């Protein structure tokens, strides 16, 4: 992938990621998050992880964001916009986040391996889905089934939580 495309998609991801927390309107935040996830899916595909990129689009940009939008529309959250902001606590939170960013950048800067480029792949095409499937159903069969149980538990939990109490 050319460097120009990498920076375009990286900037797309970061700018719309920042728009998620800057927007006051929850609907605008959710739509910015969709664009951010699409940029991230493009970055995954630039790393030859096509399967991960596709499920990023299907699961995150598709299912999860529809769930978010559905809840936002259901609750009708427009009344919360005009709240007063406490500037002191906001500045403190921002300072903690900037310290974290400085730490991450300094660690990446001192990480010698990080200055190398990616090694080339031999073939022009790789059989991505087959390789992930072989790993998932071979080496990681037990974790896969445990995750299945987890999703079942989450489904039952959601049904129980959203059921109305009998009066």
């Amino acid at each position, binding site marked *: *992938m050319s*460097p120009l495309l*990498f920076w375009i998609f*990286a900037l797309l*991801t*970061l700018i719309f*990621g920042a728009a*998620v*927390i800057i927007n006051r309107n*929850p609907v605008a*935040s959710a739509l910015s*998050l969709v664009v*951010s*996830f699409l940029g*991230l899916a493009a*970055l*995954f595909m630039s*790393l030859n*992880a096509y*399967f*991960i990129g596709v499920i*990023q689009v299907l*699961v*995150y940009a598709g299912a*999860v964001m529809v*769930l*978010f939008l559905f*809840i936002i529309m259901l*609750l009708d*959250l427009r009344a*919360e916009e005009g709240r007063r902001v406490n500037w002191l606590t906001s500045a403190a*939170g*921002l300072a903690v*986040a900037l310290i*974290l*960013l400085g730490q*991450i950048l300094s660690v*990446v*800067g001192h*990480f010698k*391996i*990080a*200055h*190398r480029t*990616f090694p080339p*792949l031999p073939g022009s095409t*790789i059989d991505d889905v087959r*390789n*992930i499937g072989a*790993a*998932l159903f071979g*080496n990681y069969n037990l*974790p896969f089934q445990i*995750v299945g149980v*987890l*999703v079942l538990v*989450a489904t039952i*939990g*959601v049904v129980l*939580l959203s059921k109305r109490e009998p009066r």
Partner: protein
Amino acid sequence: MITLGDYLIVSGILFTIGFAGVMLRRNLIIILMSLELMLNAANLSLVAFSRFRVGPTGLPDYNAQVFVFFIITVAAAEVAVGLAILVALYRARQTTDVNDISSLKF
């Protein structure tokens, strides 16, 4: 050329954006979205390392991508449960602002 460090920096900035969202915003829905951003930042660095570590067969390291698959699955379950808790809370208190929900028991 694009190095591994470029992907790690993008991932770090994205994680910081999500972290700042959790620290700064008081709306529970936005906090959940920021959590998603942080999980995706971790996914990006995992996939970058997977592509960087080409094995003797000439393929990327697929262990990291299986890990990303699990993270996406668990994150989807987490969002569903989190939003269900939010709806139950909204029914009880008519608010999604964390400043209004400061007591442990009501």
